[in-house]
């Protein structure tokens, strides 16, 4: 049985499947026609709040909003 043989090129380069899949999806969304494109890209937006912890105490959280365009 092929256990380690024939890994896909992206895994050999250190990319995980989720990263690969998300990159493929972003590229497809970038090639859509206009009204669909903006609505698809808005689907990829991520909103989250991040707070760093120092000495067991959380600092003030900051709210971030990232799109796939980095």
């Amino acid at each position, binding site marked *: 049985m092929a256990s380690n043989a024939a890994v*896909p*090129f*992206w895994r*050999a*380069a*250190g*990319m995980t499947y989720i990263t*690969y*899949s*998300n*990159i*493929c*999806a972003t*590229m*497809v*969304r*970038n*090639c*859509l*026609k*206009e009204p*669909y*494109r903006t609505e*698809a890209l808005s*689907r990829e937006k991520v909103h989250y709040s991040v707070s760093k912890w120092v000495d067991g105490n959380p600092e003030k959280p900051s709210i971030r909003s990232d799109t796939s365009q980095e």
Partner: protein
Amino acid sequence: MLRQVSRLLGRPIAAQQQVKMLAGRAFFSTDVPATPTEDSTFVESWKKLIPNIEPPKTPSAFMKPRPPPPSSIPSKLTVNFVLPYESVLSGKEVDMVIVPATTGQMGVLPGHVPTIAELKPGILSVHEGNDVTKYLLSSGFAFIHANSVADIIVVEAVPIDRIDQNLVQKGLAEFTQKLNSATTELEKAEAQVGIDVHSALNAALTG
């Protein structure tokens, strides 16, 4: 008198069991009984130790066993085509689907052998009578079950008419150029992914 009743009731069931054994079928893992299974080793060790109390049910007793596949091949394939934000087809009965597996375009008919296929960016075509609906998939998986149900799960899928030709050409040129100027393995892999996806998009527009 009651003892005779149980003997009379016992006879027809025994006859049915004999008929089953005489049928001479090989035992497949798909021939699962319809009654809930219980963990026999656990029950036996419990009964040895604590004969007075009923053994508790283990999680496997609560699990519904997999239903056996239908004995005759169904005439239609049931397709569930889902995206994270929408289910495009849900339990739709079709004649055939062609999925873009990493090993090539795979046609799935009713009665297909159970398969798990990883999908590459490409075209999914759903054939229903004379209608063919095509979608461009980004990547995902296709699970084909023994009872002719196909689950196709992808991250992003678009009907072909929503793809913009110019953006595809631009993207293809950009990623080809990135591949030439890439230094690290990761950049090369990303550029190669870009080329694959955009060539699939191009093929969808022209093919």
